[in-house]
């Protein structure tokens, strides 16, 4: 019984430990301000990168929508 309990505690401690990011042992001081700022700006840059990667598809989608739109309006005027 005791060993089971101990095992559970150990597992929990291990899990919590794993969930926490390891402290950074860097020989270079990244600078507190630079570190925090980087996380903010990188989030935005990451989003921008996603848009950039899918830009072709997004553009294609709009292009198709608009061409259908113009096609339809053309048909309507013709009719």
């Amino acid at each position: 019984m005791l060993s089971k309990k101990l095992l559970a505690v150990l597992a929990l401690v291990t899990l919590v430990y794993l969930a926490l990011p390891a402290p950074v042992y860097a020989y270079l001081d990244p600078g507190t301000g630079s570190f925090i700022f980087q996380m903010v700006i990188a989030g935005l840059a990451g989003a921008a990168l996603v848009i950039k990667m899918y830009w072709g598809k997004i553009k294609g989608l709009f292009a198709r929508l608009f061409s259908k739109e113009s096609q339809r309006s053309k048909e309507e005027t013709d009719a």
Partner: protein
Amino acid sequence: MLDQSERIPASFRDPSGFVFRRDGQIYRQVNLEYKETLNHLITSGLYDGLIRDNLLISHRDVGREYTLTENAYTVIQPETLPFVSYPYEWCFSQLKDAALLTLEIQLRAIDAGMSLKDSSAYNIQFVAGKPLLIDTLSFEMYEEGHPWVAYRQFCQHFLAPLALMSYRDIRLHQLLRIYIDGVPLDLASNLLPGRTHFKLGLLSHIHLHAKAQTRYADRSVSTEQRKMSRLSLLGLLDSLKQTVQRLSWEPKGTEWHNYYSITNYSESALRHKAQLVEEMMASLDPTPALVWDLGANTGVFSQIAARQGAMTISFDIDPAAVEKNYREIQAKGEARILPLVLDLTNPSPGIGWEHCERASLMERGPADVALALALIHHLAISNNLPFEKIAGFFRQICHTLIIEFVPKNDAQVQKLLASREDIFVDYDQITFEREFRNFFDIERQAPIQDTGRTLYRMVRKDG
């Protein structure tokens, strides 16, 4: 063993290892704590890819035999560098190419599960015309969630000086000579023109970045709880890359812009001078390995030296001339010329801790041959240097000297004297020869056709 080996003074920051010199060769000790990381660099295929595409210096493992301390894992011997140069000696495009190389390597490292733990411009050297990362121990294991530890350093070493050169003044790259860890971002932010606030990349990585640094300057904030996704890291690198790529500088209105057309050189005089330089170079035995062309302008005569097979460092004071020279060698794929910015009257000093982290110009010599073409009048008249001092300087930096004497009645000298009193009573060819003979033996001399100028080849008296 220790008495034969000497640790390189600049190599003390990184606990992963250090660089030392032994019997004239450069080695790098890798410490035990870096064992796994070095092995990952090799086994992941990252090393091979970087070597194949000429982005990282190659090395061979020479084993434990050469180790200097107890905690050693192994010793590697990197490929030999013909000449070490520093970011404050590079032109705009050289610094920009070095920045883009750093980002390219970081992107490839992330692909291989690694990351650059520093992004110092001093880790880049120009080898065979191209920038190369020379610090094999710059890699660490990438852990998902961790921000880029070298982000601040990248902005200070590359982005800030490039932006200042591009948007404010090309000469501001000299700030790198004062600030050894790169231009402080608050300083860069202050110096950059207001319109750079409307450039998204510069607004974020310099202006807002500087503000964040000031804001957190005295605060202790735990960064352990915060995570940054891999996608965010890739976004950050993409943004930095775009920001660097968009920075540009075009040389215009340079001092030497149309130098060759305004001197009293006729077409045939120029050809004759080139021919004389070529002959004086070609008849040297042994063939020189390292040539310093001082006052090289855009490198016309450096090309003659390079054609003879010598690694030629093409120095000029004018960043525009150096920029043109660099672009030309890039276009031609010329591997034996390295153009650098240098003010010979105030050459790069030894800087950093104990003046030893970055070597002075003289410590990086002597060269086998120095070319001093159309230079003497600038030193003697513009900088008031007596011939004795000029000869004494050349004695320290080269074994053989190819130097052009420009007489006082030459149009170029007259131009220098036009706005000042002629206090240079000793500026004549007889005094020139007498003073240089104190340190050199004159081996050859030849008048340059259609000019009053003379070309000399001299060899240092003690060999």
